[in-house]
């Protein structure tokens, strides 16, 4: 027969959940405001632009690696054969969902080591998916404009958000299983 361990390590009682939720929501909102403030601040815009252009360069290199034709022109990836281009705008560089993940991970009760690992692995996963998204849109746009609009505005954005939620959820489950969640009192 399986047993659970003693009261000091038991799952939190029902009355602890609202407190934990409230604390998470407050910290999540604070971190969200700080991180979005940093993203939108004029001082960080040159850095954001460099990062965005870097993503376009990597995307174009990946397309060429797999036999496709693409060149990076600033924040635009263009097919030199038909001059179809896809621009990576500010909302398309994965920064929004990365900030959401960061705010959620930082607000969650876990050790700093777990948070650092969650941030690093989660950020890497988000940007791998975002590169796939950008490259797929580059091909879909050349094939069908209506499909491009649907995939760009609704499908991929929803998948990115869902992916971020799944990453956070998986990380939270790992933290809970490690047993250190209840001991972490500081964000």
């Amino acid at each position: 027969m399986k047993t659970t361990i003693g009261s000091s390590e038991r799952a939190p009682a029902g009355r602890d959940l609202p407190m934990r939720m409230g604390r998470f929501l407050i910290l999540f909102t604070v971190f969200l405001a700080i991180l979005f403030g940093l993203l939108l601040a004029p001082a960080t815009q040159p850095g954001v632009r460099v990062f965005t252009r870097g993503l376009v360069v990597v995307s174009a290199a990946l397309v060429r690696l797999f036999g496709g034709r693409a060149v990076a022109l600033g924040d635009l990836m263009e097919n030199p054969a038909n001059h179809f281009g896809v621009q990576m705008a500010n909302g398309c560089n994965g920064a929004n969902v990365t900030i959401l993940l960061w705010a959620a991970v930082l607000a969650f009760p876990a050790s700093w080591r777990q948070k650092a690992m969650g941030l690093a692995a989660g950020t890497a996963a988000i940007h791998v998916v975002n590169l796939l998204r950008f490259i797929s849109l580059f091909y879909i746009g050349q094939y069908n404009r209506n499909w491009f609009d649907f995939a760009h505005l609704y499908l991929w954005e929803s998948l990115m958000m869902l992916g971020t939620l799944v990453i956070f959820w998986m990380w939270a489950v790992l933290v809970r299983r490690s047993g250190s969640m209840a001991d972490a009192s500081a964000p």
Partner: protein
Amino acid sequence: MLALWWYVLLSPLLGGLQILTGLTLRLWPGAGSIARVTVDSSGDWIVRVPVPASVSRQGNLRQMFPSAGPGGEPVQVRSIQIGLPRRMPVFFTLSFPLFWATALAAPWVKRSWRVLLCGTGLTAVLAMASFLFFAAYTIATYLHINPSGLAGGLLDAGEYLNTNVAPYVAPFLIAIWLHAELRAQIFFREPVEAAPTPQQTERRRGRYRG
């Protein structure tokens, strides 16, 4: 859920959003019968709202709408009508399938119907508020009456979050907020299995012997 939304539910959701937005605008103090939301033949939304007297007296508006003749009274702008592309209201209804997908994927319990109902209502309010904010921001930009400085920066940030973040994030937050089981799955620590205590071991041993 996205396919169901796109092919089946989009039209009724847009109709509902139009009615809800129109009613809210009419209930706005001073709006009366001036405020309305209509849809033109191309599917774009036409929003007509009253312009408060304090706004119409601003210099920017007087420059945009000068008096008809020399020395005449300046034009009194009482309302403004603006066309907004169809993709924006469509975009704001995206929260519905995202919420439904999350709520339906969560553990199904007796209260799930209530969660679905309340969440759908909240999502409708959110979609309407997002659309109205977008419309107000667009009108303010068109009339050049956006505030400057910190207030302007906060308004721009609000608009960025309204059109880039809120429609994707809010459905998940609503689902987590309303669905206790989903919430518990994220925030409860799972009971850790432990080795049996010595007493239990003894009991088992005895049973095996017998």
